[in-house]
């Protein structure tokens, strides 16, 4: 077949084939180099585009993106001072400035490492290398557009957390779109993992690897092994991926987790340090490195990581208050209480919310204590103790544990014991966390007493759970539903109680039919669990069962349901 290039390869012909008109779209060009902006404007004009704006910096781009909806954003990765292209993208996605049909193209001067690092949480729709010519731009735009069509329903199901339906949609698309089969398989595996089907996800990864070695698939397999508790095998696989491709940062992050689970905190911290060297501009990674180093009392490393985290966070939507609290602790340990307090003041200026105020107060107390100002530490501790007595609400688990640590340190006893028992009841089967709780007791020279307290708190939670299971098993569903409400009130953040609550509500509706209020109750419970512990296997399974109960013409098939039993002592 011989093609006359003038026809077959003419942009218009390609555009017609893709069935989309790019001329009426609204474009934003972001580049700090005026010559490049002019060039891109010419290129777009040659493609027939009529509406385009330009920005010379990341900040300017954000202002424009906040005011106007753009269909296509052409953004250079390297934007000089201020936000870089990746940070513009992250902020757009988090602030919902891009619609699902918008196209974000990341432009770079050379083959981009970011494109294959597997590190960036927010990926652009495509990367494109300079010099940009009309043909290449049009091909990439059409390709993104086609991919968006193929993934549209899948993405929609993903957003609705209907992962199994989304995975089925992947299969349908794989059958007809050979070109996108790898992307679809990758998505399918991710969805199966989210839906709590790791065995099926493993099959997908193995199928992909059977044809060709892909870092993401090998890493995916290793993650599944890690979640199954096979930490050593996972560690070897992650290291294998890194040996193949030193830039595949995701493997480093996972390797650090594997070491952490094996209790090898120093190795874990070393890996994070290497990853942060290769890809230093991730707020999330610097935060993790800082926290790991702080735990190991590696003061210089923790300080560097927290300072870097704050610096890159300045232009990033991902910025985190954890870095400020971490840095304050470091300053305190260096006996520089003055800077610590400045950092805490900064944290309270930059971030708002009650939890931030509370954590700032706790950190302040820890800083006083660690820098030897026991009088002020005691005063802060007393204030916090009063607050706990006045308000029965308890903060999240990590805050409870820090608060208990401080209160023990300043000599309070009852309040921290109560906090740690609360933490234990709400996490009665999380052995890693309970070991940390035990550690706090030991530091307060209450090792034996602590072990007893943990034991009885665990039993309390297990008893509550078991009573619900018994009612459910003996067919007293209405009573089971009522009991689980009581249990939830007592243990508002116990994952297994929450899951069982939802399961029993579902069982009730499966026997007595759909009820709007119970449906809402089950949904609220599940959303709460997904908030405190995102991405659990049971979450997806229960959401799936809940969806089957929605009223419709044909009756839903009865599923074999099971309530998670026992646990604890």
């Amino acid at each position, binding site marked *: *077949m*011989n*093609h006359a*290039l003038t026809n*077959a*390869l003419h*942009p218009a012909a*390609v555009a017609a084939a893709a069935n989309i008109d790019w001329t009426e779209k609204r474009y934003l060009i972001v580049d700090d*180099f005026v*010559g*490049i902006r*002019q*060039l891109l404007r*010419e*290129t777009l004009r*040659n493609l027939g585009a009529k509406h385009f704006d330009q920005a010379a910096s990341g900040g300017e781009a954000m202002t424009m993106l906040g005011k106007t909806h753009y269909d296509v954003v052409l953004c250079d990765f*390297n934007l000089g001072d201020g936000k870089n292209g990746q940070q513009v993208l992250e902020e757009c996605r988090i602030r919902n400035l891009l619609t699902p049909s918008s196209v974000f193209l990341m432009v770079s*001067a*050379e*083959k*981009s*490492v970011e*494109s*294959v*690092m597997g590190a960036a949480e927010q990926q652009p729709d495509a990367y494109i*290398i*300079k*010099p*940009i*010519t*009309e*043909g*290449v731009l*049009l*091909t990439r735009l059409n*390709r993104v557009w086609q991919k968006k069509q193929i993934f549209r329903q899948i993405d929609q199901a993903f957003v609705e957390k209907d992962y199994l339906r989304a995975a089925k949609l992947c299969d349908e698309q794989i059958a007809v779109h*050979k*070109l*996108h*089969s*790898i992307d679809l398989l990758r998505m399918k595996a991710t969805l199966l993992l989210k839906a709590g089907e790791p065995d099926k996800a493993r099959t997908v990864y193995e199928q992909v690897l059977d044809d*060709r070695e892909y870092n993401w698939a090998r890493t995916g397999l290793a993650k599944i092994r890690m979640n199954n508790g096979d930490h050593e095998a996972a560690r070897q696989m992650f290291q294998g991926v890194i*040996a*193949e*491709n*030193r*830039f595949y940062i995701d493997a480093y992050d996972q390797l650090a987790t594997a070491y952490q689970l094996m209790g090898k905190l120093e190795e874990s911290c070393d890996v994070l340090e*290497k990853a942060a060297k290769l890809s230093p501009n991730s707020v999330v990674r610097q935060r993790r490195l800082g926290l790991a180093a702080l735990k190991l009392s590696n003061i210089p490393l923790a300080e560097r990581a927290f300072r870097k985290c704050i610096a890159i966070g300045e232009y990033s939507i991902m910025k985190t208050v954890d870095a400020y609290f971490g840095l304050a602790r470091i300053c305190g340990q260096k006996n520089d209480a003055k800077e610590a307090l400045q950092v805490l003041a900064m944290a309270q200026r930059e971030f708002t919310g009650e939890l931030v105020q509370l954590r700032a107060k706790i950190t302040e107390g820890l800083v006083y204590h660690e820098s030897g100002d026991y009088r002020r530490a005691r005063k802060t501790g007393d204030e916090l103790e009063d607050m706990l007595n006045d308000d029965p609400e308890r903060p999240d688990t990590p805050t409870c544990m820090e608060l208990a640590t401080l209160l023990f340190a300043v000599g309070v006893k009852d309040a921290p014991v109560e906090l740690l028992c609360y933490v234990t009841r709400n996490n009665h089967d999380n052995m890693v966390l309970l070991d940390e709780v035990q550690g706090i007791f030991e530091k307060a020279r209450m090792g034996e007493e602590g072990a007893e307290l943990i034991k009885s708190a665990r039993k309390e939670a297990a008893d509550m759970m078991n009573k619900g299971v018994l009612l459910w098993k003996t067919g007293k569903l209405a009573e089971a539903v009522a009991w689980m409400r009581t249990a939830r009130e007592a243990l508002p953040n116990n994952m297994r109680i929450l899951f069982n609550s939802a399961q029993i509500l579902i069982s009730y509706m499966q026997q007595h039919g759909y009820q709007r209020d119970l449906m809402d109750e089950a949904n609220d419970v599940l959303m709460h669990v997904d908030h405190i512990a995102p991405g659990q296997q049971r979450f997806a399974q229960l959401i799936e069962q809940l969806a089957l109960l929605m009223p419709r013409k044909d009756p839903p098939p009865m599923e074999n349901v099971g309530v998670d039993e026992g646990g604890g002592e």
Partner: protein
Amino acid sequence: MEDQADDHEGAPELFLFLASTAHDMKNSISVLSGTLEGLLGGADDKDVNHPAYPQLAQMLYQTKRLNDNLIQLLALYKQVGKPEYPFDPRPQQISELVQQVASQAKVLLASKKITLQADFSQEMVWTFDEDLIIGMLTQAINNAVRYTHDTIRIVVAEKEGFLEIRVEDNGAGFPQAMIDAGVCAMSGNTAGVNFLTNSSGLGLYFASEVAKMHKYRQRNGSIHLENGGVLGGGAFVVRLP
């Protein structure tokens, strides 16, 4: 591997400086070639007969060579072929590959009054690193501009389980020294006399590294130069598993 990881640690500032300078140079060359393409592409019949027109075309040709060389130097500096290089093979539509390569070369070829032919199957899909292969083929076409009479032809076909891409021309063919340089580049024999003295040496070396990175089921990609083909001139041939 450990040693390479620490390569830039001795002089991180120098590395950053070099990286930002390279970024700057890429921008300047992009603007230069874009402006020239704009001028040449917008020329009417009268402009084409202006004595400056062929000189402008030659400027574009040289700018493209400069760009190719800069990309190759950067890529080699970043160690193409080593685990350090961000290699990203994906299934690609051959028609899109040809379309993108043709669009990169369009203005240059038109200004040099060279016709580009393409012979490929519309539905064909193959797995490769698109940006690297586009770079290699664009450069092969820029090279063929020097050797051809008035036609360049891209042929893509499956052959013995490999994807074979040929960039052929209707010139007098490559001199034997060039063909030998291709063999040297593939064998990694950088001591070959003609390899380092030949101005195409860097390009051939780069192309052979890119081809070799493509591996599938124990088979590697390769490149070579030959004379003959449909047009009877020189041919740059890349085979990908």
